[in-house]
């Protein structure tokens, strides 16, 4: 059965605005499951899901795992360390082996851009991209969108600025595609060495100074600065990065009260974001984490063939259970 999203969720670039909204709307009823005393519904009972994490990840993997377990799926985790991949198995062989075990879904995290699509093209199971190289991290963008919508009541017309290492960031790419599809205005800001050449062509505004970005934006999405960027020469030092691009209390002093600050985590406190900001009134960082589980439940449910309008019923354990 083909779901309303197609077979896979590889990237936000492939989705229509309608499909994005359908995921956000489907996530709404699922939020409540995590608030129950018994956090489990039988929506994906009997489905087998492999979490294939070939690059280190804590938050995303755990978030997917909770989403799967709360929907009653059977899950297996494969991590980079200790897996056959480390022993030299190629991605295509991993794919074929998974196929041979007749699993229903694969959630893949991989260090190479395009790896999720590579897998999706080779196996009949549903494939969900949990981050591929610098390409996309669609569920992160979806949970960011949901969090923004929760707080602001809309996405359309908002000014959202993504701050940090845009060049290497899959979170940035997925957010840019998603926000533009939902008619938000998008800005990016970071050291010029960490912005892709010609990024304006995607339809985003480029800010060279973080102060200008903050003044412009309704929402800031502050990216994690990978510490290895300093070693490879993209920035002179972390201290300098914080000095010129860090989202600090001082820089937020004159910002309106309802300016939102998001961060996909894990944070480097004192580098891209000051502790006082992360823990302060603008921050919705922990709301993002909570929403992450609901968004992933929604994606799993929809890809398994669930109907968006039946999500509420499915949650009650009723007729919405997916075939």
């Amino acid at each position: 059965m083909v779901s309303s999203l197609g077979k896979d969720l590889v990237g936000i670039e492939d989705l229509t605005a309608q499909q994005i909204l359908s995921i956000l709307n489907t996530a709404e009823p699922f939020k409540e499951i995590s608030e129950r005393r018994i956090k489990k519904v039988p929506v994906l009972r009997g489905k087998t899901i492999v979490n294939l994490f070939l690059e280190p990840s804590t938050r995303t993997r755990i978030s997917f795992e909770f989403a799967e377990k709360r929907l009653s799926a059977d899950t297996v985790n494969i991590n980079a360390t200790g897996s056959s991949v480390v022993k030299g198995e190629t991605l295509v062989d991993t794919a074929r082996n998974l196929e041979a075990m007749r699993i229903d879904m694969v959630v893949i995290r991989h260090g190479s851009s395009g790896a999720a699509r590579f897998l999706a093209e080779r196996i009949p199971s549903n494939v969900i991209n949990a981050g591929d190289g610098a390409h996309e991290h669609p569920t992160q963008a979806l949970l960011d969108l949901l969090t923004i919508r929760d707080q602001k009541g809309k996405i359309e017309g908002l000014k959202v600025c993504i701050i940090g290492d845009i060049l290497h960031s899959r979170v940035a790419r997925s957010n840019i595609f998603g926000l533009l599809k939902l008619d938000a205005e998008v800005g990016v800001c970071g050291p010029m060495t960490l912005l892709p050449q010609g990024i304006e062509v995607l339809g985003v505004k480029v800010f060279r100074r973080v102060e200008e970005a903050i003044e412009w934006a309704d929402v800031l999405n502050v990216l994690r600065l990978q510490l290895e960027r300093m070693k490879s020469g993209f920035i002179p030092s972390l201290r300098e990065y914080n000095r010129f691009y860090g989202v600090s209390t001082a820089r937020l002093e004159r910002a309106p009260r309802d300016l939102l600050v998001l961060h996909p985590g894990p944070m480097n406190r004192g580098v891209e974001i000051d502790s006082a900001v992360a823990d302060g009134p603008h921050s919705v960082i922990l709301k993002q984490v909570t929403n992450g589980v609901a968004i992933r439940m929604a994606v799993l449910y929809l890809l398994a063939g669930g109907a968006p309008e039946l999500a509420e019923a499915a949650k009650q354990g009723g007729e919405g259970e997916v075939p």
Partner: protein
Amino acid sequence: MSPRRILFRGGRVVDPSQGLDRVLDLLVDDGKVARLGEGLDYPDDARVEECGGRIVIPGLVDVHVHLREPGGEHKETIATGARAAVAGGFTSICAMPNTDPPIDSPATVAFVASAGRQAGFSRVYPVGAISLGRRGEQLTEIGELVEAGAVAITDDGSPVMDSGLMRMALAYSRAFDIPVADHPEDMGLSRGGVMNEGLVSARLGLQGKPNSAEDVHIARDLLVAELTGGHIHLQHVSTRLGVDLIRRAKARGVRVTAEATPHHLLLTDAAVDGYRTDAKVNPPLRAEEDRAAVEQGFLDGTLDTLATDHAPHHYDEKEQAFDDAPFGIVGLETALGLMLTHFLETKKLDLRTLVERMSGQPARAFGLPGGTLKPGVPADVTVVDPRIEWVVDPDTFYSRGRNTPFAGAKLRGRAVLTVVGGRIVHE
């Protein structure tokens, strides 16, 4: 057994070296071109090839081919590569030295030459390395490599980053009258790149190699060639500014020859979309403005040579995530069909110029025999049927490499008979 005498009857003979383009008979006798003329008498024992409606040209010459042997025989061998060459109409190919071990000694040069002779398909000319181990540090024994059969030197696959070493190579090679071929790429600027840096790489989240990585290095090579008077041969030019720099250097009288490849003439980085590893090549497929400039340079002769940069890989190696797949496209069996379809049929280029770029000029640039059908020369002849319509199917390749972004392309025209030294090696 191949017959001693072959009469190619009534074909359109196109040989720029003699200013020829008309319907003639061509007689091959004892391995050489014996006579050209209308209604030639011929000995009774000659095999007669009816060439009406076909084109008879000097065998094609490809100065940039990776045969992978020694060390990469799962990708290609000298024999399979040479077999693929004659299937594509090439009678002479120059084997790049980035093998394992690299071709950096007289013994390894002699090995390639001898394996080529034993294979008995196209002529295989070894190209030696510029530096020992292709490490970019110390010159190879260039004179001895030439004595052993090397027709040029290059560190292809890697650029020569040390400008001082390039100066020495260009100056030293003058005494031996061979070109120094360079893969122009500033490794600092291109570090980590797997495709062209531009809009497509930004969208796909793949690291890019900017045009400037190639431009800087082309400019450097041209200046050092000018300084030394050496002959620089710039490989697989892919950027608009690179073409322009070469055009201006030629006008100044710098000794430079330069290649265009079929893929840089015909494709852009849009071909990479969908993470197609068969379109992963170095230098990368670039933007449309660059493709158009390469085409313009090829048409006006700035890029004087068509070279395939035939780079076979095993299918397992290409069936990986884009970052992990190796660079390279096979070209020997598609180049002629692509050029006939996209340059001759479309009237962008006349046949005489196309033959010059694919045979006469590359032969001259690398000092090879061939590239001509003058009576008395060894008979390297390709017969082309311009009417045959065919679809590129990598599974039918003689090459072990199947990696081409042109799979499924509908082409018109291909080699139907290839003769090397008077011997029929493909029909």
